[in-house]
C-alpha cells in the first residue's frame, strides 16, 4: 500500500488534464495536416495519373524526396530555413505545413492507385452514356477508386497522426512533448509514457473502427 501510494505522488490529476490538452493539440495538428494533405495529395495523384510525362518528370521526383527524407529532418530544416526566406512561422504553423506536404506526398500515390484501379472499359462505358470527363471522374472513378484505396488511406492517416509526435522537436507542446515535460518533473517515465500511449490509442482506435465499419458496408 505504502509503496504504491508513493509511486503515484509525482503524477497529479492536473497532469492528466495537461496531457489531455496536449492530446487535443495532437489531434488538431494531425487533423489539419491530414485534411489539407489529402486534398493536395488527391490533386497530385490526379496530376501523376493524367500528366504522364510532366508528372513523372517533375512532380514524382519531388514527391519522392518528401516521402523518403525522414520527417524529423524535414521539420528541422524547414523550421530553420523558413525565416531565411522571410517566413516567420510558429512551431504549429511550421509543423502543420511540413506534415501537410508529407501527407500529400503519401496520399498522391494512393490517389493515383485509386484512379488506376478503375478499369478503362468501365470508364469507356460511362463516357458512352454521354458523361463528360468530370462526370465520369466524380460519379464513377472517385467512388469506386476511393473504396479500393480507402484502407491504404486510413493507414496513411493513422501514420501521420503518430508521426505528428515529431513536431515536438520544434517545441510545439503536443502529446509527446507534454509527456517529456512531465517525465522531467515527476521522474516517472513508465507511467507517463503509458498514459500518453493510451491517449494515442484513444485517438486512433475510433478512426480504425469507423474505417472498418465503412469497409464492411461497402463490401456488401
Amino acid at each position: 500500500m505504502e509503496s504504491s501510494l508513493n509511486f503515484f505522488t509525482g503524477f497529479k490529476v492536473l497532469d492528466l488534464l495537461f496531457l489531455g490538452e496536449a492530446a487535443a493539440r495532437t489531434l488538431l495538428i494531425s487533423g489539419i495536416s491530414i485534411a489539407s494533405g489529402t486534398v493536395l495529395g488527391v490533386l497530385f495523384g490526379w496530376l501523376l495519373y493524367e500528366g504522364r510525362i510532366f508528372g513523372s518528370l517533375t512532380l514524382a521526383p519531388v514527391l519522392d524526396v518528401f516521402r523518403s527524407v525522414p520527417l524529423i529532418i524535414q521539420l528541422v530544416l524547414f523550421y530553420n530555413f523558413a525565416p531565411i526566406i522571410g517566413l516567420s512561422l510558429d512551431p504549429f504553423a511550421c509543423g502543420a505545413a511540413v506534415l501537410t506536404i508529407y501527407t500529400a506526398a503519401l496520399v498522391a500515390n494512393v490517389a493515383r492507385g485509386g484512379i488506376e484501379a478503375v478499369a478503362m472499359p468501365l470508364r469507356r462505358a460511362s463516357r458512352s452514356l454521354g458523361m463528360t470527363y468530370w462526370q465520369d471522374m466524380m460519379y464513377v472513378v472517385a467512388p469506386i477508386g476511393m473504396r479500393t484505396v480507402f484502407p491504404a488511406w486510413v493507414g496513411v492517416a493513422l501514420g501521420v497522426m503518430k508521426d505528428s509526435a515529431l513536431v515536438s522537436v520544434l517545441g510545439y507542446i503536443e502529446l509527446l512533448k507534454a509527456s517529456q515535460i512531465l517525465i522531467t518533473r515527476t521522474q516517472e517515465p513508465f507511467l507517463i509514457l503509458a498514459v500518453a500511449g493510451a491517449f494515442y490509442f484513444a485517438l486512433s482506435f475510433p478512426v480504425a473502427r469507423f474505417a472498418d465499419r465503412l469497409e464492411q458496408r461497402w463490401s456488401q
Partner: protein
Amino acid sequence: MIEVSELHKRFKDLHVLKGINLVVEKGVVLSIVGASGSGKSTLLYCINALEAIDSGTITVDGEDVHAKGTDINRLRRKLGMVFQQWNSFPHLTALENVALSPRIVRKLSRAESRDIAAKQLEHVGLGDKLNSYPSALSGGQQQRLAIARALAMEPSYMLFDEATSALDPELVGEVLDTMRLLAEEGMTMICVTHEMGFARDVSDRVAYVHDGTIEEIGPPEQIFGDPQSDNTRRFLAKVR
C-alpha cells in the same frame, strides 16, 4: 441515319480500318461479322468517338461525329452502347446504375430518373432486381442491366459489341432475347456478333468485315445463302 465514309484508323503502325463505307438507315438492324482482330470493335468505337479516327467521316443524323465543333457528349446520348464486358457500376444498385446518367447527363430530376430506370429494368426483365448490387447478378443479368442503362438515355441507335461473347453459354439466350425484343420494337441497331443464328434471324442486313474493309454486305439470305466473295464463304464455312 449513320453514315461512314472512307474511314481509316491506325494504331501506330497497325492499319486497322482501311476505308470503311457504311450506311445504316433508321430502323435497320445491321449485324457485323468477321474474324477476330479484323477491326469490328474499333469500327464501333469510332462511331461514337471513343476512338479518334485518322481520316474519313462519320455522321450521325447528318452531324459529323469527329468534327472539331461537335458536342460529343450530347451526340453520344443518341448512341447507346453495350460492350462485351458488362461494365456495371459496382458501387450502385441496378436502379442507381440505370438512373445515374438520366439524372446527371439528361439533367432529369431524381424521381424522373428513377421512374425511367425502373421502366427500363422492367423492359429487360429485371423488374425484380431493382435494389440488387451488380455483384449479386449473373453475367446475363448484368448484361441486360447494361442494355437498360443505355436505353435509359433514350438513344436513337444501339451499338452492341459482342454483347454475348463473355457470357456462359446458358446465359447467352436471355441477352439475345432482349436484343431481339429491341429489334422488334424498331430500334436501329448495329450488332457486332459471333452469333450467326442471331445475325441470320434478326438482322435486316449483314456485313462481313475482312482485314479492315467491308468485304460484303447484304441481306442475311444473300450473305448466308449465296455469298459472293471467297473470303466470306471461307469465313462462314469456318464458323458454322
